[in-house]
């Protein structure tokens, strides 16, 4: 019984038992079944994926649009603390490896609609500027006992219910007149990031988060001003002390990254038009002949190893929206888009939440395009990563202040790309 080969290619077939053997032989001759496909299969499978929201950076519309009462998502500059009083302090502010205070990378305003307590919810990411620390941090993140690990990348989450002591229960109007209910704790004059609970001993009005920043500010302009400030602070109404108002305060440090607002969009919306003209021409190129061993070996040798494959898939996905810097998909089933195949954490590598013990789930990942927007230098010791993946408590446990979450950094491997 000759059955046309075209029909064989079409889906489901119900055939009597006796014919199966014949068909299989014919199939083997005509079309090779590629066993290697299993790896590619998973990568191409996009149907099961959760919808991803992408983040793009833009210059803020107004100077006040990134203040904390507007509940922004921003990158660079200073953090707009959600809870302005119970800021992280002490060991949480510094890199565990070198002792320098961490620099603000970005914050994501990601409220959870299901819970009352997370009506407002922001996740903050900080990292140390030094690439050496990041390289050492790689070893740290693989360690299993995360309470004792020393990291140079730290993530904090803060959430507030709708009715709280810091902001009004009504939505902000989106203009200059919005003000929070109370000024927050004063911040460091140099970095504008951490709590400024240490004073300059001379003028008593300049506040710093750490000795290092006091020293830097001293050399970078505070020394001449110090005398003047100490004189003015002796006056009865010294309003320079209060640095925690909602007004925009310029920070002294020049090494902070440029400030941007992060706007979000669904991934599917920002897809560019794929070229459809290729589709028609290629039907003729599809050869009807089967694939023999020659092609197979050729294809094996040039498809590259796992790292290359995952990088290629990563690039393809990114290409839909090349300016994205953030991929957000908070779900237990969500899989981050890994640039490399090496350096991925397994389930066991991820710790549980410090505070409530529930497992962590993937929330978002930061992409290296951000480094381009920040204008990071490209020399030997400048920052460079392939992706920073942030995992947060699945239950988004409650509490006052900032809770530490887990970040996984994947660095790009330096393997040569030759076949």
């Amino acid at each position: 019984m000759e059955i046309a080969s075209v029909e064989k290619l079409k889906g489901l077939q119900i055939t009597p038992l006796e014919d199966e053997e014949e068909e299989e032989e014919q199939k083997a001759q005509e079309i090779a079944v590629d066993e290697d496909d299993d790896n590619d299969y998973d990568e191409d499978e996009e149907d099961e994926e959760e919808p991803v929201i992408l983040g793009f950076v833009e210059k803020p519309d107004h100077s006040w649009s990134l203040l904390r009462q507007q509940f922004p998502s921003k990158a660079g500059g200073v953090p707009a603390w959600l809870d302005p009083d119970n800021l992280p302090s002490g060991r949480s502010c510094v890199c565990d490896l070198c002792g320098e205070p961490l620099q603000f990378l970005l914050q994501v305003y990601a409220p959870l609609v299901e819970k009352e307590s997370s009506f407002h919810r922001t996740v903050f990411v900080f990292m140390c500027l030094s690439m050496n620390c990041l390289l050492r941090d790689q070893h740290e993140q693989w360690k299993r006992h995360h309470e004792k690990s020393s990291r140079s990348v730290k993530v904090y989450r803060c959430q507030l219910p709708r009715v709280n002591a810091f902001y009004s229960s009504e939505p902000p109007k989106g203009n200059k007149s919005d003000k929070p209910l109370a000024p927050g704790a004063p911040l460091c004059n140099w970095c504008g990031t951490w709590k400024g609970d240490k004073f300059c001993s001379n003028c008593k009005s300049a506040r710093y988060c750490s000795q290092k920043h006091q020293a830097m500010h001293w050399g970078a302009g505070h020394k001449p001003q110090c005398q003047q400030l100490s004189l003015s602070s002796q006056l009865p109404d010294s309003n320079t002390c209060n640095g925690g108002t909602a007004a925009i305060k310029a920070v002294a440090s020049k090494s902070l990254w440029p400030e941007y607002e992060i706007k979000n969009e669904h991934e599917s919306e920002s897809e560019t038009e794929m070229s459809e003209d290729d589709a028609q021409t290629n039907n003729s190129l599809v050869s009807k002949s089967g694939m023999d061993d020659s092609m197979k070996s050729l294809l094996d040798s040039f498809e590259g190893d796992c790292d290359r494959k995952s990088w290629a898939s990563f690039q393809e996905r990114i290409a839909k929206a090349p300016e994205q810097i953030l991929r957000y998909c908070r779900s237990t089933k969500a899989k981050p888009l890994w640039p490399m195949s090496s350096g991925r954490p397994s389930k066991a590598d991820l710790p549980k939440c410090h505070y409530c013990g529930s497992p962590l789930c993937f929330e978002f990942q930061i992409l290296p395009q951000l480094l381009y927007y920040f204008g990071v230098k490209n020399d030997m010791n400048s920052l460079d990563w392939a992706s920073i993946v942030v995992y947060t408590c699945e239950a988004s446990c409650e509490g006052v202040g900032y809770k530490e979450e887990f970040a996984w950094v994947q660095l790009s491997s330096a393997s040569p790309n030759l076949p």
Partner: protein
Amino acid sequence: MAERGGERGAFRRGFGGGGGRSDRGRGRRRGRKEEEEKWVPVTKLGRLVKAGKITSLEQIYLHSLPIKEHQIVDLLVGPSLKDEVMKITPVQKQTRAGQRTRFKAFVVVGDGNGHVGLGVKCSKEVATAIRGAIILAKLSIIPVRRGYWGNKIGKPHTVPCKVTGKCGSVTVRMVPAPRGAGIVAARVPKKVLQFAGIEDVFTSSRGSTKTLGNFVKATFDCLLKTYGFLTPDFWRETRFSKSPFQEYWDLLGKPTKALLLDDVENANA
């Protein structure tokens, strides 16, 4: 008074939940031109290329830096890079519900002037496979050295010396040929050599050349070796130059840095 912003959700449209409508007006991009201009580099090398600090592929080859973004090659080689689809084969995987057919595209790129690359990609659609293969080909681009058969008149047109490459059982030997000889080779390696920019060459192959994979890989290996062969031109001692990462290091630190160091020491004392 109606409550603005959802009752449960937060005030602003944050991440998660509804995501966003594109209020940025980004919308659809027309055509492919804007895509290329909007390349945002992901790797350090990419950032250097975008900034214009690296002007030719040779600088990258000199330091054996891996090229991970195909836009780097696009920017450096430019429009002279041609690509050609050599073959597209359907491959199938057996599933419970019949066969799952995918297409493997096999693409060679080259500028006809000393650079070739080869890429293979498998995908559910032919167009996607071809696109992916072109990208992979650009990433695997290698330099090819050309030389003279006899008098050094005009541009180099052939291989500099007899070279041989081997892969599996196939060995391919390339022998310099005089001008006008053309590429004397089998169909598939001839194509690769044309893209490489070699005008005249005699080839000789041995082994099971029916295995196209090994055959083409052997010619590639051969081309790779053209720059690996030590000729008297290379006898001079190499002057090592700085890698692009070191070269563009901004050593012009801020002048206040020196003062700061002193202050810290004083404060600590």
